[in-house]
């Protein structure tokens, strides 16, 4: 190996390690600062536990809706050519590029009761302002793009030959979609769902405008609370030690979910589920 190659590799290694260190060290600092006592303290704090439970519920609903709407859109963008397709692709990226505080203001204006859309939603008995549906809306807005983008990539990677084989082997278009296309794209879709969940849980700006406090309304029947991220932001000014413990706990919950899903994926359970009918 030439000296130039060695130097180039060392430089590349140092630069890469710097970035990885930037990703990891703040989290280590967070956990180290608060310690297990701080994390357990946050876990035993009723207010934060309620906020965390609420956030898990809202994010679960948001991810469900994101999959319900984002996967079909990803499929259409991956498999069909139509006028305006590039415009739709650009629109999917809008939530990624605009400040999320602005998202909160825009959603508030759209869903204000005096507005036709807000009035219609209110007439259906779905409160948005300072209610769980406001949180779900913000999470959907800031995160569903990831589901669309990863689904689109996953569907695009399914070879036409694979689909044509399924058809010629006797599958109707619907059977080919359910038994071949969807399972083949499942891992990409799962990745999108994880990204959406993580993005939704970490949101603050949109919540501050639309749902700083959350009042009980179905399906949230618990006490008045905040999204977990807002709760941490709030308490950072009141009780920084508790806020840091709660932040560390939130990080562990997110990482735990990520690790569990990856581990389950490696066990082949998803593969088994994907091929359940066969």
């Amino acid at each position: 190996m030439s000296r130039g190659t060695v130097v180039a590799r060392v430089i590349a290694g140092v630069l890469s390690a710097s970035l990885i260190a930037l990703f990891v060290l703040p989290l280590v600092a967070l956990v180290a600062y608060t310690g297990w006592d701080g994390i357990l303290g946050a876990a035993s704090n009723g207010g934060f536990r309620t906020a965390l439970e609420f956030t898990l519920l809202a994010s679960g609903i948001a991810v469900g809706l994101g999959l319900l709407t984002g996967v079909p859109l990803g499929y259409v963008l991956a498999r069909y050519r139509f006028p305006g397709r590039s415009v739709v692709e650009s629109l999917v990226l809008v939530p990624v590029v605009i400040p999320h505080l602005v998202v909160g203001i825009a959603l508030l204006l759209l869903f204000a009761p005096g507005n036709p859309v807000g009035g219609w939603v209110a007439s259906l008995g779905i409160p948005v302002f300072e209610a769980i549906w406001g949180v779900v809306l913000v999470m959907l807005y800031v995160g569903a793009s990831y589901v669309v983008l990863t689904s689109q990539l996953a569907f695009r990677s399914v070879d036409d030959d694979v689909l044509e084989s399924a058809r010629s082997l006797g599958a109707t278009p619907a059977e080919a979609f359910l038994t071949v296309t969807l399972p083949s794209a499942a891992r990409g879709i799962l990745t999108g769902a994880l990204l959406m969940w993580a993005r939704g849980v970490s949101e603050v700006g949109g919540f501050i405008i639309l749902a700083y406090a959350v009042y009980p309304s179905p399906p949230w029947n618990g006490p008045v609370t905040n999204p977990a991220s807002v709760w941490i932001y709030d308490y950072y000014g009141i009780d920084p030690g508790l806020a840091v413990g709660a932040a560390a706990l939130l990080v562990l919950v997110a990482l735990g979910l990520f690790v569990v899903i990856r581990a389950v994926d490696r066990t082949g359970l998803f593969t088994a589920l994907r091929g359940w009918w066969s």
Partner: protein
Amino acid sequence: MSGLDVEGLEAVRGSFRLGPVDLAVPDGSATALLGRSGAGKTTLLRTLAGFLPSARGRIRLGPTSLDRLPPERRGFGFVPPNLGLFPHQRVRENVAYPLRLRGVRDATVEAARWIDRFQLRELADRFPSQLSSGQQQRVAMARALASGPRALLWDEPLAALDVESRDVLLRLVRALLVSDHLPLLLVTHDPATALALADRIVVLERGRVRFDGRPELLAEVPLDRFLARFLGFENLLSLAEIDAGSDSVLASDLRAAAGPGGVVIPPGALRWDRSASGGTRARVSALRWNPGGWVVVVDEGPWTFQIRAGPETPGVRVGDPVRLSLDAAQLKPLSDRAEEGAA
């Protein structure tokens, strides 16, 4: 009639127009579809399989008209160029897929029968990504046959196989065609596969059938570059290439024998020796050995000829001068059709 019967089939794909194509593949026989890239082979196969709409014509499989049937009801065992194996399913799930779709009660047992037939038992629990290209091809064939097809459409089915594996599969496929009375239409670029398996050869050119007949009749067809290469001719010269060597004493014979596309110099037409006179002066530029014997590569002006020299080591070395002579009576003209049809 029985078997696959295509009459006046036409299809349009962008600026490419296929047909009209007429062909018949009787039960228990194989027809190889040949042609240059872009000649329409894959378009024809995909139109027959129902993935591309036909503009005109008739497709029948036995007594059944397929024209209005969707792909899943056409009854073809279709193997596309990339094989189309399901990446998320193991080998046995891939093979069982069509059986489960058909509601076969003992799908697993039936799939195992095909897995055994294609010597895949030890690979049954693997995913396609864990298989070699040749193993993947066997899985694709087993799966296509497990679907209970009434005809087989295979696009380059043996492209990635080594010679021995290919021969084993060729024998297996041949036996299956006979035992199951299936017609097979296969696209291939491999002369060995086509000549070993096919009872009939169809050559497509610019979307139309240029030749349809028994393989041995190919020798009587006017040659173009594609066919000449397919038949194993190594020394081909276009008119421009002949003119580039007009100083050579061979040029006049080559020019006289050439067709609009140039000339083919069959193996026996070109002779070399180390005598001091006769023919034209040339120089050995390479020596190559292959299982058919030595090949002496000879440069003469702008031309390079490959001359088969038999199994004995040729008594020349690279750089040696030799004399080349030509038996003009053996030269074959090249038609220019392939040049027009190049796509």
